[in-house]
């Protein structure tokens, strides 16, 4: 397990935020941790909807169980988190 800090763009937010993710974290865990820094702080909650993670600029999200290591994300690389 290695800490891989990510740059996170939570849709609806105004600023890119630092997220100290771990290599073993799944994308659902990344989304949840990113939401803790954004939802109810700078972005309104959307209950009942699922959070997804994609590489910045990608068309499709990562599978929800893919880990940070499996996704090949490098330190401070930017991912987008959004409500599906």
């Amino acid at each position, binding site marked *: 397990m290695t800490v891989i*800090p990510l740059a996170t763009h939570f849709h609806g937010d*105004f600023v890119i935020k630092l997220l100290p993710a771990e290599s073993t974290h799944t994308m659902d865990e990344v989304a949840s941790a990113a939401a803790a820094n954004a939802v109810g702080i700078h972005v309104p909650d959307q209950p009942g909807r699922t959070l997804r993670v994609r590489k910045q600029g990608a068309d499709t999200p990562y599978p929800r169980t893919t880990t940070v290591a499996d996704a090949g994300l490098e330190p401070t690389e930017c991912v987008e988190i959004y409500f599906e």
Partner: protein
Amino acid sequence: MALLERAQWYDIARSTDWTPRYVKQDELFPPELSGGEGLPDDVWATYDEPYKISYREYVDIQRQKDAGAYSVKAALERADLYNKADPGWISILKEHYAAVALVEYGASLQESRFVRWSKAPGMRNMATFGMLDEIRHGQIQLYFPHEYINKDRQFEWSHASMFSNNWVSLGARHFFDDVMMTRDAVSTSVFANFSFETGFTNLQFIGLSGDAAKAGDFTFSKLIQSIQSDEARHAQLGTPLLQMLIENGQKEEAQKKIDIAFWRSYRLFTILSGIPMDYYVPLENREDSFKEFMEEWIVTQFMRSLEDLGLSKPWYWDIFLRDISEHHHGQHLGTYSWRPTLWWNPAAGVSPEDRDWLEEKYPGWNATFGKVWDVMIDNFVHDRMDRTVPGTLPIICNVSQLPIVGTPSQTLRDISIVHEGRRYHFASEVDKWIFEDDPERYRHQKNLVDRFLGGDIQPADLGGVLAYMGLGSVGPGGDDAHGFAWVDTYRRKLAATA
């Protein structure tokens, strides 16, 4: 005995060039310090400073300026204007003095380097006065806030900020070291005197002086006027150099220097001017928006000075025109959200009346930045204060050193590159262009997040970050300027709809 008119002796007195016999020309004026490579030796004597003054005249005028500023200060202290001023205005004073006062001493070193290393006698002469100007600016802008320390310890930052690792100070130092302290005399003058001073400080001080008078702070207004009249003179040091560069086939290089300095200056001013003008100045005293100010003073007037020289708008002009409507709104949200990291108390500036003004000046504000404020206001109204300060850091641009912000759901985007194994982040395509033009200049600097991730900040939490930045030890960090009194309006609205 009658004195000669200045014009009868000026040229002889300032033509201090001589032919070195014991050292080579390049030893007397090392290219890395003097600059202007490729310019013929005989052009330096043709440098014709547009503003000529004698030492006798200079001293007399400066004495009058100081007498005026200090006497206004003494008279108005008795009127206790400080305690009657809006807290938003006090925050502008704190932000300004800490970001500017010590940098003025840096500027005196910049000018003293011209005095020694410039190959143009006219520039050496004028820079001598510029050097004295900047010492005066440093002294007066340390002395005035010093009087306020007994009222509020945050004014200690006026002296301390540039010695600290506060993130705003890191950004300001990075900028000023780049444009003012680490380039040759010719480049520095184009970067600092022409682009920064003519383009921004000179005009900014006009706007700030007007805002001060409208807010009733005639002490600050007089101080700023006193400084601005110096800036208007020594800012012109760069123009003759630009003419020399253009006439000798270096127009492209001159344009690039301006393009870099203009963007870097603009981005710093979004914090120093953009936020205060649109959010801190009390609404009843607020007239022009930051965007309108930029359009009048920068877009129109500075561009005219470029065109007069035969130069062009920077290549990123369209990006810039869009940016003046949005970037500072994001930076305001950022500084307010992370307010414990500031040395001043930010004014939120988002009462319903403020929002109407913002919407009028920036159509669409409520549907973008306003949406974020809605979430924050909901927390304030319901006393969820723990959710009003984020538990993480923003990603910071490796050129501007400012958080990477954008319009929510529209323009927010991280721009990054990997250079020699390290990932660098940029807040815009222009910042990326500046880095890629000269990566060796910028690549070693570590911004606050780089330092955090590199283990320089311990403990690695918000408390560690605040201690690293000097908050708490130099003086207290920021909190809402008005003690959240503006939230009451929203509480009443909520109660009325309950």
